[in-house]
């Protein structure tokens, strides 16, 4: 067992299971989302780029109306896992996905599943703000238009901009090119664009890494507001950010293969954010969050 000195600094020891709990109780005990509240789940997820094994056997469930953070050192496969969740990896010809990724219990890699339908329900915000080279209005209206959404377009645009607190800043220049906005505004525009098509899940791939601290904190506030209506999965390099906004945190790392030396990403630990940052079970998690590597 662990030395007494280590345990004394840690949070209260969790009572062991007695074996008579329900599935929900077992999940709660392990820091996982209640099975009834799981919106997406990875089951035995393996990802390959050609012959390179990028992600090894990830089992991970994402809670509805929660923010789940994926953290870990560079090259640990967290972005790869994120991009599997709405089949953005399909765009890389050499990428191959094994295992299951379920959304509402349906395997999104199933034979009959259309990736277009998947992406309409599971939106994505990227690392670098990527507004379209069009007007602010058209940036928001594009998504609803192409998926043939009903309703007054002006209303849809205004609602999306209000949700992201951009409305007051841009309402007088909706016809201006989106590239005239600041980096933080552009990123909020991208979030508004994503919200405009009414997705269920929003994936964010290091959404603040290109932004200044003030813009970052605005986006973080926005995320906390958004989780009332959406489920959010965020990849971040910023551990403070994960600690500030997320409900649960998954820690990934990369371990070199003995024969090839390739670094394959894997999930080390998944738990409530508070527990990951105060009382991690795995030594590697503790080393990473205390800044000893990565």
């Amino acid at each position: 067992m662990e030395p007494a000195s280590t345990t004394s600094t840690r949070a209260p020891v969790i009572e062991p299971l007695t074996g008579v709990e329900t599935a929900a109780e077992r999940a709660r005990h392990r820091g996982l989302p209640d099975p009834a509240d799981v919106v997406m789940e990875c089951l035995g997820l393996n990802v390959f780029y050609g012959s390179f094994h990028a992600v090894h056997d990830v089992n991970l469930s994402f809670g509805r109306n929660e923010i789940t953070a994926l953290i870990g050192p560079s090259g640990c496969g967290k972005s790869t896992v994120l991009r599997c969740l709405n089949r953005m990896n399909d765009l890389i010809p050499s990428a191959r996905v094994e295992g299951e990724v379920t959304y509402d219990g349906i395997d999104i890699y199933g034979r009959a599943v259309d990736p277009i339908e998947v992406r309409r329900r599971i939106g994505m915000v990227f690392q670098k703000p990527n507004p379209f080279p069009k007007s602010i209005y058209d940036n928001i209206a594009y998504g609803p238009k192409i998926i043939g959404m009903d309703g007054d377009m002006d209303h849809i645009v205004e609602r999306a901009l209000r949700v992201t607190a951009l409305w007051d800043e841009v309402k007088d220049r909706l016809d201006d090119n989106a590239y005239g906005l600041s980096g933080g505004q552009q990123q909020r525009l991208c979030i508004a664009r994503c919200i405009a098509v009414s997705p269920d899940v929003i994936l964010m791939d290091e959404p603040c890494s290109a932004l200044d601290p003030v813009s970052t904190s605005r986006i973080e506030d926005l995320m906390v507001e958004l989780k009332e209506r959406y489920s959010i999965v965020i990849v971040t390099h910023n551990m403070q950010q994960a600690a500030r906004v997320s409900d649960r945190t998954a820690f990934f790392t990369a371990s070199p293969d003995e024969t090839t030396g390739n670094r394959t990403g894997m999930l080390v630990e998944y738990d409530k954010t508070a527990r990951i940052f105060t009382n991690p079970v795995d030594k590697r998690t503790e080393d990473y969050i205390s800044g000893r590597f990565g």
Partner: protein
Amino acid sequence: MNNRVTSERTRLAVAGARSGAVSLDRQPTGEIVRGRIFWALLLLAICIALLGLALVLVDAILDGRQRFGLDLFTQKSSSFLPESAGFQNAILGTLWVIGGVILFCVPIGVGAAIYLEEYAAKERWWSRLIEVNIQNLAAVPSIVYGILGLAFFVRGPFGLGRVALAGSLTLALLVLPTVIIAGREAIRAVPPSIREGSLALGATQWQTIWHQVLPAAVPGVVTGVILAVSRAIGETAPLLLVGAATFVTYNPSGPMSGYTVLPVQIFNYFTRPQDEFFALAAAGVLVMLVVLLAMNSFAIWLRNRYEQKW
């Protein structure tokens, strides 16, 4: 005493070492001379290029200035009346031919560029083969296209005869590789993040290309098309083979009409013995230069005006 001498020596040594190590003075080394020579060679290159252009311009202006005027555009060609002969039918012929070229090469060229950039599996050998071949086609001598046009469009399967449409089709084939290459570059310049952003909203690949990639690539495509077309305007050799060599004195009535084009008309005038025709030909060169200059300037303006900074 001894001590002071030592310290004096030390100070000197330090000062000496410093003066040797840090000097910001310009050193007359071989590097600088080589740099100067390189600079001079580059300057010479640009001077030769500009000189060639200037010579053509000056020569054309000197020879053609007394014949340069509006009547060049209003008078038809003639083989025996140099004073009243003009280029009207040749200019109209050029317009018909070039209109046809644009009509054929833009949709086909842009379509091919989209396929190669957005759909083709780039790492496959056949994609590379196609790419190398297109680049080769861009370098094929234009007379080869003339022979092809003669065999296919004028006679052979199409059997159009010596008409403007045959010239259009031949020149369209000639500039197609240029349009495809320019189109591919314009499409490639649209960053992948734009495609990802569109696809992540649930757009299909077709919607992404039509609504995002193509509009962003339009300035580049148009620039490429204008440059390709201005090459087509100046082409003479292939058109000599597909019908433009006939000396016509009437305006073309449409794509199925007999025709001649500006450079061919200039060539025809130059071959006449009279000095008046020589001046007329030089004036025609001026007309062509003005047209080409205007088109290329328009292409540059368009590129600067609509270029998207990412």
